[in-house]
């Protein structure tokens, strides 16, 4: 009697397990994947890196937000927000070592793109300072100063204090002069992926907007996001914190091809 009950119980259990299994098979097979999985980054579709395409459209006084030799075999484009903690961490623990090592030795050309997020109050303002500094050839120092002091100026928005300490007074005055007409709120990326409006009186805003729109095309879904180009080919965009030893290993693999 008890063995009959047991076998009936097992049969029911098996039958139910299979019914659940069948439902899950159907779900696993037909569940929609996130759009990012199916979308190919725009810069990955084209052989020319995004910075080269934008450079062609840019005015002669366009900010140069790059570090290293333009003819380096590897180009790395980074979409970053100066106030995002992951971007700060990525700069301090990965990009700083990369600049000292592979950028300095001419293996990597680093291209910065601004992608200030709406949720960060001062990131747009910091991007304006970085772009103005890039217009007078002071990008690298200002870029490092912004990330080095991220926690401090993020608290009160006093970006100027740390930039003035990083460059000469003369250059600081030149940057202030460039930003004199910037009175409206700086452009930031939008959740609905619409292009932000630049301040007509601010000469750097069009370049920030240009970077944001380029970021939408990648698509940048989180900061930092970076794209690596080698021998005319673009590798899929990666996001998040990657340590220098692992990134270096990837570069070495590319260079050994």
């Amino acid at each position: 009697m008890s063995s009959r009950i047991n076998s009936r119980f097992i049969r029911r259990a098996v039958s139910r397990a299979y019914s659940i299994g069948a439902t899950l098979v159907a779900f696993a097979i037909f569940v929609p994947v996130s759009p990012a999985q199916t979308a190919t980054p725009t810069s990955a579709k084209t052989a020319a890196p995004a910075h080269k395409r934008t450079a062609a459209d840019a005015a002669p006084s366009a900010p140069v937000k790059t570090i290293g030799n333009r003819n380096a075999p590897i180009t790395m484009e980074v979409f970053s927000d100066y106030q995002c903690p992951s971007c700060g961490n990525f700069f301090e623990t990965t990009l700083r070592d990369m600049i000292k090592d592979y950028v300095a030795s001419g293996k990597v050309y680093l291209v910065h793109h601004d992608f200030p997020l709406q949720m960060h109050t001062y990131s747009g303002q910091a991007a304006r300072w970085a772009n103005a500094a890039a217009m007078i050839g002071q990008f690298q120092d200002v870029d490092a100063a912004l990330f080095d002091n991220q926690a401090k100026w993020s608290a009160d928005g006093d970006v100027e204090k740390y930039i003035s300490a990083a460059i000469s007074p003369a250059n600081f005055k030149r940057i202030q002069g460039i930003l004199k007409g910037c009175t409206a709120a700086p452009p930031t990326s939008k959740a609905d992926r619409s292009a932000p409006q630049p301040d007509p009186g601010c000469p750097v805003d069009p370049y920030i907007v240009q970077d944001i729109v380029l970021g939408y095309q990648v698509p940048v879904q989180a900061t930092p996001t970076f794209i690596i180009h080698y021998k005319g080919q673009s590798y899929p965009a990666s996001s998040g914190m990657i340590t220098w030893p692992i990134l270096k290993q990837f570069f070495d693999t590319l260079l050994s091809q």
Partner: protein
Amino acid sequence: MTPSETRGNLARTLLLLGRLALAAIFLFAAYAKLKPQAAMPWSGSSIKTSLSLFAMQVDSYQLLPPQFVSPAAHFLPPFELFLGLWLLSGVLLPYASLITTLLLGAFFAVMVRTYMAGLEINCGCFGPGERLGPLTLLRDGSLLALALAVTIGAFLHGRKTRTESAPVAHVSTPQRAD
């Protein structure tokens, strides 16, 4: 055909479908991680590049120290390929599905931890470019449940098969003396 036989056939069919679905998913996951990127042809060098790219995705989870990231990234895709082929063969299915369940359970735990920590990274589940989010968690959770169902089904089916094939014991009925 009796209702019991019908249920048995249905159970066998569902187990087969579950096994094949898991095998296909694992084979595709391995292929997506090993396939050449950036229009490179298949070669040892292109696979090495793909594995280095996958190592960056493993690293972005911020779970392993750098010295373990590369070995993990070089081990996982071939192991997924092996598991996919094992599931496809159906040999020792209870053990194949059990290992699959444990692996998917580990993946799911790591993904939940990463998502809860607020890290905005690529999942790396089926190659580069897929952001870790609620949908990927839902999908991987469903795959884990499927693997668990297949494991339970495979063990129960194995036990049932062993019971049915066991020799029937002949018990002699005592004769009445009158």
